[in-house]
């Protein structure tokens, strides 16, 4: 083998190695990442997450998902200290893609909601375009005006809501 072809093969091997490394890392991470819950027909988070019971149920086959949130009325706010944290919801498979959201909290206040994954077209730049700001604003609205519910807003993404809910419940909000 001439020197030239030797360095060429070495380069080819290096490139193949790099691509294999990328593929391998993706494979390992995929194997380790939590499988999305089937939004349709899933039991959701059935177990109480925080003392006092915030129980939830997941989706029904109404092509949508449902979740429940209970608040322990009158319980002292033990987490009163404003603590900035980020909670990631479970990934939910809504049939045409996976939905997963991330909620940032300051103590018990939601300060931001971003979608980590949205089905078809949900990515960081698409998200910044339309979906996330809307859903974020709805979440913020609910808490800032001490609103119990919102009428008229239509939740267009089933999995989003359920994942938001799962994140909220993990946070014990």
């Amino acid at each position: 083998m001439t020197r030239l072809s030797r360095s060429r093969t070495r380069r080819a091997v290096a490139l193949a190695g790099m691509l294999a490394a990328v593929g391998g890392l993706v494979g390992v991470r995929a194997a380790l990442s939590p499988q999305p819950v089937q939004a349709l027909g899933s039991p959701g988070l059935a177990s109480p997450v925080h003392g006092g019971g915030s129980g939830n149920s997941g989706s029904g086959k109404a092509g949508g998902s449902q979740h429940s949130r209970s608040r322990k009325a009158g319980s002292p706010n033990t987490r009163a200290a404003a603590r900035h944290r980020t909670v990631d919801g479970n990934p939910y498979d809504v049939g045409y893609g996976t939905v997963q959201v991330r909620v940032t909290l300051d103590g018990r206040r939601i300060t931001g909601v971003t979608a980590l994954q949205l089905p078809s077209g949900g990515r960081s730049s698409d998200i910044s375009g339309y979906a996330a700001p809307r859903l974020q604003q709805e979440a913020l609205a609910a808490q800032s005006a001490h609103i119990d519910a919102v009428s008229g807003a239509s939740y267009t993404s089933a999995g989003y809501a359920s994942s938001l809910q799962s994140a909220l419940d993990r946070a014990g909000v």
Partner: protein
Amino acid sequence: MGTVVSLDVRATERPEALTTAAAAVTERLVHIDEVFSPWRAESWVSRLIAGRVAVDDCPSEVREVIELAVALADLTDGYFSPFWRRTAAAPGPDPTGLVKGWAAQQASDVLLAHGLPDHVVNAAGDLVVSGWPDPQDALTLWRVGISDPTTSGRLAGVVELAGGPRRWAVATSGVAELGLHVVDPHTRSLPSGTASATVVTAVDGSRPQGGAFADACATALVAAGDAAGSLMRGLSSRAADAFLIASDGSVDDPGRVLHGVPREL
């Protein structure tokens, strides 16, 4: 049907009751979807719309809903109508315009049956509210925010409802969010003027199907276009409150139900 149903249950001393209740609600909604979804080709409603079955062939709950739809069509001068899209290919009745509200109430019924009286069921904007928001404080009011149809992410205002054993149903219909759903059955075209309409009614002995009622009336008000004002005043004579938000943001609220809390979000 692409609808998200959300349950908000207040204060349980028995968390395990929640789990069972939620599972039961899920089951009920799954069933409703199987039976009523017009997007499932083999659901009863789809077959009904297509004319492949007659109303009398359908299960009792379908019949009830259809009867409800027909009665409400009458009530709303035809602006809500199960025959809103009657064509040769779809000759049968389509109750879809009120199924969401009806389903929300069904879910609420399940929760009540499980001993959870303080809750909100929200089916993509059609709510049924029950009990007290804060069981420790009987004076707290339920605050229901109403989406501003002209600006996404904003609230147009808040509707306050008293807590108590009586349930409430709140339904909002809007051109902007429901898009092409709402069609004026008389003219078969999109109405102009009203951007969203909200109906608030009690769910009690005098109106046992308040959820369906609210949903149908809200749909009718949006479909009514210019006639919405008079239709709305007619509704208020029937112990239901309603208000309209026009596409320019102005609010027609004869019952003074909506409290302005426009908040920049």
